[in-house]
């Protein structure tokens, strides 16, 4: 391997390094923007202005908060399992970078071509739950442990309908590559799988909110019952990494939803990457809107919803998709 080869864009290692840098920059910047959007939407939903004084319309507020978080001392509680305790936030953030790889930003913009992108995302997003368990267990804190236990039950319950709804789309498209699935839809809403198969879209959205531990399914955190759930004991950037991972996960599920159900990068007039970003941000806004509208569900309601409603409906949807694909294709 010579240097010339390494410096050309065709070399996989070069692409990987550049791609990872882009992902880190994008995740960091988006974390800041989304925190601001979250607080602004919260404010306006409650007829107040939200952050306003640091920078124009409070735009620099998350930056100042981040500086504060970085400046804080990292404390591990007495009796905690130090190794697990510090592994957890890193483990929460690590799969995020992998999950960004297969997202179809634009037809010409891909880091590594992979034909099983969807499987990769689903597999690595499961690691997030492991980090919550480690955090809850390693903290030596009852709130943490309760939050971790809840997160396990929740993600086991919601991964099933999520997978089934994704499978329905994958069968319709005949591919597990997000680029191909996007390419098979058109630029107009009636060509999207979300319109052709609204039930799968609905199930996916509900499960996505649950998988990212967002309100109304934020039982692992449940600040009014469990202080902060699994991250009760984390201070400074330990908490910051969990926080960043939550927002990055939101971007990933929104990206997957945009690619599977809203035609990915396709759209009239604008180049692809802008359409993809617009669709992602619309879904993100919707998720944030949900958070400031609904109260947290009770634990039995959460599990009932998944096992009694979403899973059977997703199975039904999958069966329909198979029949339609069988007769159509």
């Amino acid at each position, binding site marked *: 391997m010579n240097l010339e080869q390494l410096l050309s864009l065709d070399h996989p290692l070069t692409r990987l390094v550049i791609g990872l840098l882009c992902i880190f920059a994008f995740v960091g910047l988006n974390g800041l923007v989304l925190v601001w959007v979250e607080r602004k939407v919260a404010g306006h*939903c*409650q*007829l107040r*202005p939200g952050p306003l004084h640091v920078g124009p319309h409070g735009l620099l507020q998350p930056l100042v908060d981040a500086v504060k978080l970085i400046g804080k001392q990292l404390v591990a509680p007495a009796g905690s399992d130090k190794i697990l305790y510090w592994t957890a936030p890193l483990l929460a953030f690590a799969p995020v970078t992998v999950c960004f790889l297969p997202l179809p930003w634009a037809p010409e913009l891909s880091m590594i071509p992979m034909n099983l992108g969807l499987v990769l995302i689903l597999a690595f997003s499961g690691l997030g739950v492991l980090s919550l368990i480690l955090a809850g267990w390693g903290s030596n804190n009852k709130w943490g442990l309760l939050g971790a236990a809840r997160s396990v039950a929740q993600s086991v319950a919601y991964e099933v309908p999520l997978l089934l709804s994704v499978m329905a789309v994958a069968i319709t498209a005949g591919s597990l590559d997000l680029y191909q699935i996007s390419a098979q839809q058109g630029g107009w809403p009636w060509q999207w799988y979300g319109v052709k198969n609204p039930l799968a879209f609905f199930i996916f959205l509900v499960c996505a909110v649950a998988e990212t531990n967002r309100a109304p399914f934020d039982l692992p955190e449940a600040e009014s019952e469990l202080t902060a759930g699994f991250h009760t004991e984390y201070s400074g950037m330990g908490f910051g990494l969990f926080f960043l991972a939550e927002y990055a996960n939101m971007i990933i599920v929104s990206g997957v939803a945009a690619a599977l159900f809203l035609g990915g990068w396709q759209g009239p007039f604008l180049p692809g990457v802008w359409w993809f970003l617009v669709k992602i941000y619309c879904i993100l806004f919707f998720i944030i*809107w949900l958070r400031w509208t609904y109260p947290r569900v009770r634990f039995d309601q959460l599990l009932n919803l998944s096992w009694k409603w979403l899973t059977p409906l997703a199975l039904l949807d999958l069966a329909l998709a198979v029949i339609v694909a069988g007769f159509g294709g």
Partner: protein
Amino acid sequence: MSVSQLIEEAYTGLKSLVIGLGVTGKAFVQPGVTVLYPMEEVERDALVTFRGHVELIGKEEDPAVPRCVACGACVKACPSNCITVLCPVAPKEGEEGGPATMAPPPQKGCKTPGAFIVDFSLCSLCGQCARICPVDSLQFSDNPYMVSFDRKDFQIDLLARLKRMAGEEAGE
């Protein structure tokens, strides 16, 4: 529970979710109601319901003189004992005509208070005094910006305040 009941329940549930989104969505596009205090202040008309310390109401013909008849009902009604009303008592016959002494109400022949002091540091703003006043001479003031480093500033002489306010109004 039958299947039709289940479906009906799910339908009403989903409908209520959409209605909920409508409520916050509408609030999202409405202008906010928060007043950014140091830069903006609440309009004076909006402060009519504000409960500041109590103040005396002047007579219509002479706003500098309170309607108060010095009956002492407010003093008795106050659960915090923060109102002090004193009546000037004329010197008795045969005594030296020195300065008029002050005595708590009710006093015979006294129809207007000689002193009316509220200790706002004790007041709990319950409004019993204003409610019980037989001549409607007490009301809540509407100044939310009352602030001081000195406890004595909250011993408010309402008679002097009424005179000052009447003078200000006449001067305008």
